[in-house]
């Protein structure tokens, strides 16, 4: 099954990518854009069908390697939870 690890810059941490994208959008006349955050989505395909186990393993992977909690936050979601 597939689990998704979403990694975002922590609140309050300078996100120069987000600032650059916001500036570019302003230049394109999208004046309503207040803030942009750029993160990443890591899609893992695991050889299990147990969503609880899959999420708990993915969380462990995020803590160990996928995210740096000094400057990033992460959440683990299933594909059907994406809109949440």
């Amino acid at each position, binding site marked *: 099954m597939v689990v998704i690890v979403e990694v975002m810059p922590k609140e309050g*941490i*300078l996100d*120069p*990518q987000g600032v*650059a994208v916001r500036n570019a959008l302003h230049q394109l006349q999208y004046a309503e854009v207040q803030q942009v955050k750029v993160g990443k989505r890591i899609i893992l395909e695991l050889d299990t069908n147990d969503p609880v186990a899959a999420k708990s393993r993915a969380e462990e992977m995020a803590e160990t*390697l*996928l995210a*740096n909690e*000094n*400057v990033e936050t992460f959440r683990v979601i299933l594909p059907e939870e994406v809109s949440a």
Partner: protein
Amino acid sequence: MKWGVLVFPGTNRDYDAYDVFARILGHDTRYIWHRERDLDGLDAIMLPGGFSYGDYLRCGAIARFSPVMEELIRFANSGRTVFGVCNGFQVLTESGLLPGTLLRNRSLRFINEDWPLRVERTDTRFTHLCSEGQVMTVPIAHNEGNYFLGGDDLKRLEDRNGVLFRYCSPQGEVNDASNPNGSVNNIAGVINEAGNVLGMMPHPENRTDPLIGGTDGLVLFESMVAELSQA
């Protein structure tokens, strides 16, 4: 004394480091491939710059789990000298041997320039031959050199005098105008509590020969040698 230069896939400043130890200092030096586990007989290990694992995920994040790293952490914990420059510094922060994280430069640009650094301490094995407040100019060449450490952790680092180098003006002033990349408190290099692990973004190894721009960086290597030959 015997030096090791750690090489990951994507490391590209390994020869610069090797050249300082082998040719300029005339010491026994060997490369350590990241799959090796045997660090016996080495006195000091340098982690050079580059783009280990293509900087995928985060700079240094994947290199940190290379087979050699377990041994390197043991080597560091035994009190022997570990010196990371640029990508090597990023690997040391990812591995937890040094605090902080190197974020993207605030300008979003790769910076390749000579930059003055102020030496903040002269009581370490890396800087004991420096003079108090010495300013050395060495190259910086990075895209992710923006040192970040949050609130309490930053205070702890400053309180224990863990900052060894700060970006400064040629006159030694530390302020926003002399900060190339947005690093908190102009931090360019930090040392661990035990004083045997140093990480820095600038490249002192590239200022060790008068033929290629000067010798401002040599004093670091001479300090390490002097300390080790006393021991």
